[in-house]
């Protein structure tokens, strides 16, 4: 694994803080009805992304996930202003305003979505890996899913095929305890989700998903295995989401105390504590980072606000590659 240096810690701190504040901003503008539809936020789960990115070769590795997907593309190098603009439904958004919150795509940065149907992205991730293997690209695809998604048939069929064909894919379940209002205990007669890999003899295991170092270690090992022809791995990240499932969730299924317990092991705080303890940065230097994060979030908001809405013809232009596709009229 690449060493976790002072620079890595500082990057983790700045990245994770930015992701957190970016999501907080989205929650705020959602309440102002500038962003609509469903909005699923990542607060609390940032260590999974930070640690994973450390293990990836961003020049060729790929990522695919579900609808809790705003900050992953940013981690992969996408301009965060474009992600914000997508949520505003603006022409400057990652999908020109067509996809919205649940459907961020940025293939140039190796980010393949952004998927709204629970479990739908699992075979797609294996398919991305299939193509990389087919073309000898030496690349690995990280395929993320929620704990709820592991109860879909798509996971089981895909696990079998990915093992059968030794596809260069890492399956990562972000077990944040709940699928909407349903706790993991209420979805199966076992709670150690990683053990699902055992039935397919897929290397698998649990990981402390609140600690980016632990995540980076586990994902690095899995990525190396995949890259060297050893096939898939299934990792269960034990993590937690601080916010409701989406913005309309009253959260009667859990206690405030439970949320507070997890905030005690907050990934950003954990990283900041190490930075301070190891004296990787002074208080002043940390304040500079904090300010930079604040400014960038503001800039994203301003960019999204100021951007134009898409032209109406875009709705048709993006459906087919064929340029003169004969669409049916739908009204006078």
């Amino acid at each position, binding site marked *: 694994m690449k060493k976790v240096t002072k620079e890595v810690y500082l990057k983790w701190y700045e990245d994770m803080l930015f992701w957190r504040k970016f999501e907080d901003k989205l929650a705020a503008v959602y309440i102002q009805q500038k962003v*609509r539809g469903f909005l699923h936020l990542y607060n609390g789960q940032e260590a999974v992304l930070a640690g994973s990115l450390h293990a990836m070769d961003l020049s060729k590795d790929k990522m695919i996930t579900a609808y809790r997907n705003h900050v992953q593309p940013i981690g992969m190098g996408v301009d965060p202003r474009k992600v914000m603009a997508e949520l505003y439904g603006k022409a400057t958004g990652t999908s020109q305003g067509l*996809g919205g919150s649940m459907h961020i795509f940025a293939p140039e940065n190796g980010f393949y979505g952004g998927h709204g149907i629970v479990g739908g992205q699992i075979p797609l991730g294996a398919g991305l890996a299939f193509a990389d293997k087919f073309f000898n690209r030496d690349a690995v695809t990280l395929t993320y899913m929620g704990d709820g998604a592991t109860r879909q048939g798509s996971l089981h069929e895909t696990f079998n095929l990915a093992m059968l064909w030794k596809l260069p894919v890492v399956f990562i379940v972000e077990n944040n305890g709940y699928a909407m209002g*349903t706790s993991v205990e209420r979805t199966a007669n076992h709670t150690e989700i990683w053990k699902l890999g055992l039935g397919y003899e897929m290397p698998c295991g649990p990981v402390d998903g609140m600690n980016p170092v632990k995540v980076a270690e586990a994902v690095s090992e899995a990525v190396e295995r995949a890259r060297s022809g050893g096939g898939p791995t299934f990792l269960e990240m034990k993590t937690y989401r601080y916010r409701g499932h989406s913005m309309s969730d009253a959260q009667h299924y859990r206690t405030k105390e439970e949320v507070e317990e997890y905030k005690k092991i907050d990934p950003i705080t954990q990283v900041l504590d190490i930075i301070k303890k190891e004296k990787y940065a002074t208080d002043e230097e940390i304040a500079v980072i904090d300010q930079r994060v604040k400014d960038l979030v503001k800039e994203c908001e301003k960019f999204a606000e100021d951007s134009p809405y898409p032209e*109406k013809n875009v709705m048709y232009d993006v459906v087919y590659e064929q340029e003169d596709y004969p669409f*049916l009229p739908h*009204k006078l």
Partner: protein
Amino acid sequence: MRTIQFREAVAEAMSEEMRRDESIYLMGEEVAEYNGAYKASKGMLDEFGAKRVIDTPISELGFAGIGVGSAMNGNRPIIEFMTFNFALVGIDQIINNAAKMRQMSGGQINIPIVFRGPSASAGQLAATHSQAFENWYANCPGLKVVVPSNPYDAKGLLKSAIRDDDPVIFMESEQMYGDKGEVPEGEYSIPIGVADIKREGTDVTIVSFGKIIKEAYTAADELEKEGISCEIIDLRTVRPMDHDAILNSVKKTNRLVILEEAWPFGNVATEITYQVQSQAFDYLDAPIVKINTADTPAPYSPVLLAEWLPNHEDVIKAVKKVLYK
């Protein structure tokens, strides 16, 4: 008369039927402890217990099929999909098993099951979460497809759907659950396959169903100010279709506009258009106009969605066109 919400009408219909018949259960994601993702089963876990109001993991294929299997063996399941977009994951069990079992077994095994949940668009939810599948299911022999547009119809039709001995697809809308309407206290049901004239009129017939019919009401109000009288027919059931109700109205008004929230290719409006031209050709004074959603997946952006989704202005335009105004 008392006024209740659409979601309450749905819960009442299910609860009354479950009190009457012990073989009925409700199964789906978040239906029990969460009281339904849209609170359409509020209080039902408390009343009927976890044996009959059953939360599932996110496993649409599995629980749709378990529903069908149990219906082969004495149960009368109500299977809730959080939305019909997600039913696609389990549609094999609906089309290949629920719809076919009676026919394949030579009439030996019937499937008394209801698959219900919201359908079609519900704001800026984008492509995968805004799909209307009424016409997909209506295309399939063996199924019945019911799409109510108000609380009264929802309760009466859901009770009939639950009592029906064949599989029924019952489609609601996230955007209707909060709608209020008059629903009597006592027992009643509405037969499947019977359309309802929601407004009588003389100049033009507007056929619609589901939540989009509200755009027809708004249009009719506007047009009335201009002296144009619209007759609005709510199909309520898409399959089997009440052709007589449509034909009788068209024979009176001689003009037809169809408003359907669905992609334009081969939809319910297309079927109505065929039936009317073949059975009432001589009565038509203008070509039929149908209004649908755009021929694209639903876009997220508010400006595009407004263009994609039909509205009352589109209905007004269409009515004026068939009236040559």
